[in-house]
């Protein structure tokens, strides 16, 4: 059935194509077969059996990738029974992979994807080490069908909110993480001793230490939330000490240390529209994303509020207003997150061989005037319907007919 659905050819023709991997192409087409992009260009032969989507006057981009959130993991924020992003009772929850908490039937998924977001990082929250984040496409009947990559990274919190889990001091947060990392490596060296109970007590459970090993060997990223400049520097220090593949998230004061972040080759996930000062980041400001991008930091943008994930394009537009170039901002919601999450071989740009997550827009995707005309996820056209469009239809004329 799945194969049947995918076994089709779709041609999006005559639009302005923004491949992201290269310059924009006017009056160009994107040819899709069996869920993959097979051709992009101004001179693409369209097979006669192809389903055509006329995109004359439209803009065609890769589907947008939201750099973080809890799509599928949180249905109604205030209803605990619908929240599956956090595990309690374990400050080092490295083995907690959120994938099986994802609800493919979540109403948040259609609401979000019909606004051009096709892929999102689903991120665990809470604790010192929150768990494993996974990348999902916003379509699929099962978790397996939605998953793009699992895990993308292990999430750690180095911001103010993690202090309590470490005893109340930032210094303790860092030391606790160091201790856990050292124990994980020690555990790896002495698994036999461990199973014979011939080892000292370890600072986390064996399964959590096990889950950290891919991080400590650089195969899986450590996604570290840090906002204060000194906390960002601590994250960079830890990454250097343990040779971690670090992704910074939040990074509200990142602009103050943009050169150091760039020099370390560390990418950041950042919310552009974030400027309300707290003691965790008094230096927070709108220009953050732009300043870091200018300094050479690889930036991916995020809308951290799960239910507002569809406003990622508003975030991107504002990133342009406050210092990013338009091209940088488009890259920061497509190819850059794909690269940061290690899926750029399949995602993030319109190139032959890539997964056909494609959006046809009526204009500039960041502008409010612009509407989404077509969304394709893995080559399948998504109906532009959600619970909200159904409510709209019901109440467009009053009284409604129930």
């Amino acid at each position, binding site marked *: 059935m799945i194969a049947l659905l995918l076994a089709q050819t779709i041609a999006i023709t005559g639009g302005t194509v923004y491949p992201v991997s290269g310059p924009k192409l006017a009056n160009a087409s994107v040819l899709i077969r069996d869920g993959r992009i097979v051709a992009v260009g101004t001179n693409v032969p369209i097979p006669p059996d192809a389903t055509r989507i006329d995109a004359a006057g439209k803009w065609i981009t890769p589907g947008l990738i939201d750099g973080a959130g809890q799509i599928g993991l949180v249905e109604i924020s*205030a209803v605990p029974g619908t929240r599956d992003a956090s595990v309690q009772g374990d400050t080092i929850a490295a083995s907690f992979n959120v994938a099986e908490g994802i609800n493919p039937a979540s109403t948040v998924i259609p609401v979000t994807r019909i606004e051009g977001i096709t892929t999102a990082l689903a991120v665990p929250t809470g604790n010192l080490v929150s768990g494993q984040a996974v990348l999902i496409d916003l379509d699929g009947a099962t978790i397996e069908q939605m998953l793009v990559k699992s895990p993308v990274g292990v999430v750690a919190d180095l911001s103010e909110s993690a202090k309590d889990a470490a005893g109340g001091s930032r210094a303790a947060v860092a030391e606790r993480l160091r201790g856990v990392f050292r124990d994980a490596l020690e555990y790896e060296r002495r698994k036999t001793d461990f199973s014979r109970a011939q080892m000292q007590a370890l600072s986390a459970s064996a399964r959590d230490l096990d889950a950290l090993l891919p991080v400590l060997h650089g195969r899986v990223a450590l996604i570290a939330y840090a906002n204060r400049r000194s906390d960002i520097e601590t994250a960079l220090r830890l990454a250097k000490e343990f040779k971690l593949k670090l992704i910074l998230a939040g990074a509200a004061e990142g602009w103050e240390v943009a050169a150091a972040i760039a020099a370390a080759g560390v990418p950041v996930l950042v919310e552009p529209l974030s400027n309300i000062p*707290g003691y965790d980041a008094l230096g927070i400001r709108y220009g953050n994303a732009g300043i870091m991008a200018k300094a050479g930091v690889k930036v991916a943008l995020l809308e951290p509020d799960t*239910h*507002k994930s569809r406003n990622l394009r508003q975030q991107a537009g*504002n990133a342009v*207003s*406050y210092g990013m170039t338009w091209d940088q901002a488009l890259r920061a919601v497509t190819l850059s997150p794909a690269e940061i999450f290690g899926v750029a071989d399949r995602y993030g740009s319109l190139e032959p061989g890539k997964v056909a997550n494609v959006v046809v827009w009526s204009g500039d995707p960041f502008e409010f005037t612009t509407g989404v005309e077509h969304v394709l996820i893995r080559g399948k056209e998504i109906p532009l319907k959600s619970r909200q469009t159904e409510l*709209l239809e019901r109440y*467009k004329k009053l009284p409604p007919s129930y």
Partner: protein
Amino acid sequence: MRSLSFLLLALTGACASAGGGTRPAQAPAPASTETTSVARPQYPSTYVRHPNPPVLIRNATIMTATGQEIPNGSVLFKDGRIVAVGAKVDAPSDAVVVDGTGKYVTPGLIDDHSHLGVYAAPGTDAESDGNEATNPVTAEVWAEHSFWPQDPQIPLAIAGGITTIQALPGSANLIGGRSAILKLIPARTVQEMKFPGAHYGLKMACGENPKRVYGRRGGPSTRMGNMAGYRAAFILAEAYRRRWDAWNKDHKGDPPERNLRSESLAEVLRGNMYVQNHCYRADEMAQMIDLAHEFGFKIRSFHHAVESYKIADLLAKEGTSVSVWADWWGFKEEAMDGVQQNAALNQQAGGRPIIHSDDPGGIQRLNQEAAKAMYAGQRAGIPITRDQALRWITVNPAWAVGLDSIVGTLEPGKMADVVVWSGDPFSVYSKAVQVYNDGWLAYDRSDPAHQPRTDFELGEMPAPGSDR
């Protein structure tokens, strides 16, 4: 960073005495001259207009919020008043001339649902002054008594083109207290910000929040308990009002004992104070309308009103405005039925939509939120005009706080609350470049001398740069 949405809500209202400022000539008269308390001035505004030379903005697109969009137009204001708006306006010789080429001019934006100052940044418990969550009915508390003028969120909102706010108590309580209607300007005291002549609002809250906060603390624990709580409070207020109205006729004998809680509610019953009602669900709004009918007052605006589109006809008939977000939804059960066309559907039904923020981030981009709501409506085939969408963030919220005769449009005689935008304010790429509040240049994006900073920021936060 913080989400206050679970906690917020309420307005209070009462007539404020006109302050020492030179304006406004058109302060609204209270609906009734009787008040429950003695005639001495209470908690007066000390607002004074900042001096400024006359200003002529020319060659700009003027969006008046009165139905007009004038290309290559001009606005002249002097002594805090708009003098002329049109295609050709002559400037007095002492006027500062601002070249508006490529720029847009709108009235100052008004947010009728803000918690600036009462939930100030940096957001610690020490500044959490928005919910007097000690009793489900606290009509006696006034937001102005919590308001911190050094809240560093204030300059951020000014830079977003906001000139007037209604600062509200939160939504923990059935009746949360009085709102403060404020000129959004740097000031040492809240009194210097109080909008002369503004009606206080009374913040009320439906639904989940009071239930959640008081369910295990003596109630209410149900929506029917919420209703009973409002009714009990207004029953007391009716009696209180009768006692004071009788005494005020002849001032014979000792005056009745004052009760601040009933005093606020009696002002609502007299029509002097406007009810600002946090209420998400359509069915609950209908209940609140019945409550208002029982006691003979009007609900001025339903706030958040996520389901107001379901009863837009009823609300239009009732003359109650709706203060809504462009697209918030899903954070709690009573917010599950949000649609992006909420404002547009209310407009279509003949109602009076308002886009509010309830958020220190959203208040910085009310223009963007209105744009989203307008285009969402248009894409669904609801013919919202640019002027209507501008009214959602100017004269409609002005109406909700009883100031629409003074602010909210660009018309001769109105207060010179004027924003110059770098481009179309409904574009994601546009920013406020100049903000005039009562004719005074409160903010200029290109001039650090006109970028106010609060005390809090000094030595704590990096100086603003071009990125801000």
